[in-house]
Every structure is written in structure tokens, then in C-alpha cells.
């Protein structure tokens, strides 16, 4: 536990001092979401219907922007070898990296999302669904994204490969995340969608660090 906290603190310190990745992800999130109404029109009845889906698609792409660097710097400077040899182990490292990624990216997306909800004229009743679905879904993006980041570590054109590997795995989160918001807009119950997202989160917490650690071990060897 001490090792996990040490790693998270270090990742947050590095992100705060040198990282523009998190800021870029949020700027991308907002800019990309703003672009859609220019393309599909600004019909005030249509925007709430498509808003949830667009916000989720853009959030998913924004979360991917900084994934490629999740382990790359540690791999390049030899830190990954020392982290592997340390008592904390690769599973804890994978969990710490994913949590730090979520804290520096997912939380910022979560904060920015209600602003975009206003832009898309979402009813007040959908705000809760948006925030809760993103609270449950964005950690899954970081945890599952960690697997892709580890698998593509050291690969040429790793960013493209990462997208090809991870985007299909994000589809269930997108379906249920956007579905929760659509349900709230239409006045339907959203409990099932949120419960499924919660299930995804628990499964990702249990399995993703283990899978990421296995991929990291391959990269080290």
C-alpha cells in the first residue's frame, strides 16, 4: 500500500511539473465537442439527443491521447527495470499508473463534461447521469488503456497500434455510458446502465493490473 501511494504521488508530481498531457486532453475534449454542432447543426431538439454520445466518444478519444506515454518514459530511462526489481511489483505499478492517469485526465474530463452538457442543451435531469456515468466509466478507460500502453511499449508507431488495440475494448463503456445519458434525457431509468458500468469498473480493477503487469514483463524481457 505504501508502494502504491509512493508511485501515485510520484506520477502526480511528474504530471504537475512537466506534463502538458492532461491539459491537452481537456482542451482536445472541449474543442472536439464544440466542433460537432458546426457539422451536424444546432437544432436545439437534436443536440440533447446526440449530446451524450458525442461527449462520451470525445472523452474516450481524449483519454487515449496520453496513454502512449504511460510507461514509455520509465521504459526509456531504465526505471521500469528498477520498478520490476522493487518490492512493489508490476501489478501495483500498473494500478498506480492507471489511477494516476485517471486523476490527471479522467477527473479533468469529469469536471469539464457538465460545461459541454450545457453546450448540448442537455436537460438538468441528465447532468447527474453524465457525471455518474463518467465517474464510473473514465477509470475503466485508464485501466484498460494501461493494458494497451504496456502491450505497445517500445513498438514502432505504438500510438496507432494502441488505438487499434484499445478502441474496440472501449465500445462497451461507450454504449453504456452514452446509454445512461440518453436514458436520462428520455426520462427512462438509468440504474441498469450505471450498474453495468460499475461492473466494468470492478472487473477492470481486478483484471487490468494483472494483464498490464504481464505485458510489462514481456516488454522488460
Amino acid at each position: 500500500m505504501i508502494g502504491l501511494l509512493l508511485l501515485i504521488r510520484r506520477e502526480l508530481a511528474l504530471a504537475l511539473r512537466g506534463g502538458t498531457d492532461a491539459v491537452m486532453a481537456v482542451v482536445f475534449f472541449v474543442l472536439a465537442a464544440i466542433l460537432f454542432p458546426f457539422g451536424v447543426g444546432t437544432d436545439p431538439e437534436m443536440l440533447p439527443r446526440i449530446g451524450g454520445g458525442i461527449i462520451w466518444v470525445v472523452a474516450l478519444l481524449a483519454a487515449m491521447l496520453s496513454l502512449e506515454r504511460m510507461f514509455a518514459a520509465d521504459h526509456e530511462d531504465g526505471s521500469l527495470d528498477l520498478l520490476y526489481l522493487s518490492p512493489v511489483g508490476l501489478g501495483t505499478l500498473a494500478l498506480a499508473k492507471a489511477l494516476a492517469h485517471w486523476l490527471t485526465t479522467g477527473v479533468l474530463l469529469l469536471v469539464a463534461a457538465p460545461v459541454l452538457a450545457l453546450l448540448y442543451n442537455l436537460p438538468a435531469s441528465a447532468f447527474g447521469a453524465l457525471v455518474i456515468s463518467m465517474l464510473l466509466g473514465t477509470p475503466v478507460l485508464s485501466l484498460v488503456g494501461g493494458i494497451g500502453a504496456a502491450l505497445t511499449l517500445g513498438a514502432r508507431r505504438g500510438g496507432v497500434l494502441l488505438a487499434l488495440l484499445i478502441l474496440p475494448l472501449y465500445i462497451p463503456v461507450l454504449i453504456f455510458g452514452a446509454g445512461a445519458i440518453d436514458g436520462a434525457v428520455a426520462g427512462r431509468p438509468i440504474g441498469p446502465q450505471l450498474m453495468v458500468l460499475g461492473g466494468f469498473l470492478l472487473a477492470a480493477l481486478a483484471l487490468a493490473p494483472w494483464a498490464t503487469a504481464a505485458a510489462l514483463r514481456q516488454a522488460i524481457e
Partner: protein
Amino acid sequence: MCRTTKRRPVQGLTTHNLGCIRGERAVFAGLDLAVKPGRALLLSGANGSGKSSLLRVLAGLLPAASGEICWEGETIEGDPDAHRARVAYIGHADPLKPSMTAAENLRFWARLYGLDPAIEPALYQFSIEHLADVPARYFSAGQKRRLNLARLAAGQKSPAGPALWLLDEPATGLDPGAVSMLANTILAHLSQEGVAIVSTHGGRLDELLDSHADRVTLQTTGNGTAS
């Protein structure tokens, strides 16, 4: 075979018929080594002869293709966590974060490894104590290497410090004064019955460690023995 008998206890590190394959190439094979506590082993050999691969195999970073590695007569495969805990590894790269100060970099590794977080003496040992609060991005290559090597000193001052030092060309980029500091650090480790395996391309470090070290030269064909 890793076996300790009452008449002749096996101590330190031994390897038996150790082999390593990278890609489809046998980097080395049939390697038998024995390094007793308080002794160093200097590895030499041409580029590509497998020095770095051997150190990575001994650290547990690479799997051995054949043979076994023993510590105090017991195979390390029985308890890989215990083996990792006894290893201090210095690779080619310096695992430092440019935006963190020297003290922060060193303190992070010390805490992660459960070592004494009082890192000032370790910085002092490599004459970089005046750089403690300077971000590593402003360091020269030699200063970065000194800071990386200070990890060894931090471990040395801790009761739970690693007993097996695996150093891959540790003197790269160091000036003669820093090489002496490194040699003194290694000699102090050996005086505490530690084991050090150091890959080198000759030079002053070899001379300074000569009386406490055995040598093995890896051939590009991949065989070598030492005791």
C-alpha cells in the same frame, strides 16, 4: 546443482550451465560462475558478447534459457521475490526524472526499496550533495551517473541493503575522481561480505578493484568460466 553440504558450504553466487537466448541467437551458453562473499567479478568482452544480458539474467530481468542461478546454495527460482530484494542493479540508462531534484529522485528509490530515506550521506559519497535541490534536467551525463550510483550508497547504509550488486559498465561517463568514489563504494560493499559483478571495458575501475576481484571474459561465441 545448487547444493550446500556440511563439509563445504556453498556461499555467494554460483551459476551452472547458464545460457541465454535473445531472438534466435544464443548470447551465451554453458556458463559456470562462482563469486564468493567479499569478492567482485569483473566481466569483460567485446560488444555483443553478452555482458549486459548476463547481468540482466542474474538480476532476474531476463529468463535464463538453460542452467540455474544459486545464491547461498539455493536456486533463486525457489523464491524470486527474495532474489529481487537482494539485487542492486545499475544498467546503461540512468533512471532519473528530469523534473525531480537529485534528492527527490534518490529518496523515491530509497523509499520504494525500503531503504534509509536519509539520502544526504549517499549524495555526499559521490560529491553531489550541493546538487541535492537541483532538478536532474540540469545535470551533466557524469552527474546523472553519480546520482544513479548514489543509490548503491543509499542501500549500503541500510540494514536491509542489497547484498548482490550487478553493475553494467558503471564507470561510463565518470571522471577519474568519481571512478575512485565508485571503487571505494564497491570495496566497502565487499568488506561487508557483499558480492559485486561488474561489466567493464578495462580502465581505472579494474585497477582499483583488482586485488578483490576475479575476472571472466565472455567470448562472442558465448562461453566462459570463472571461479
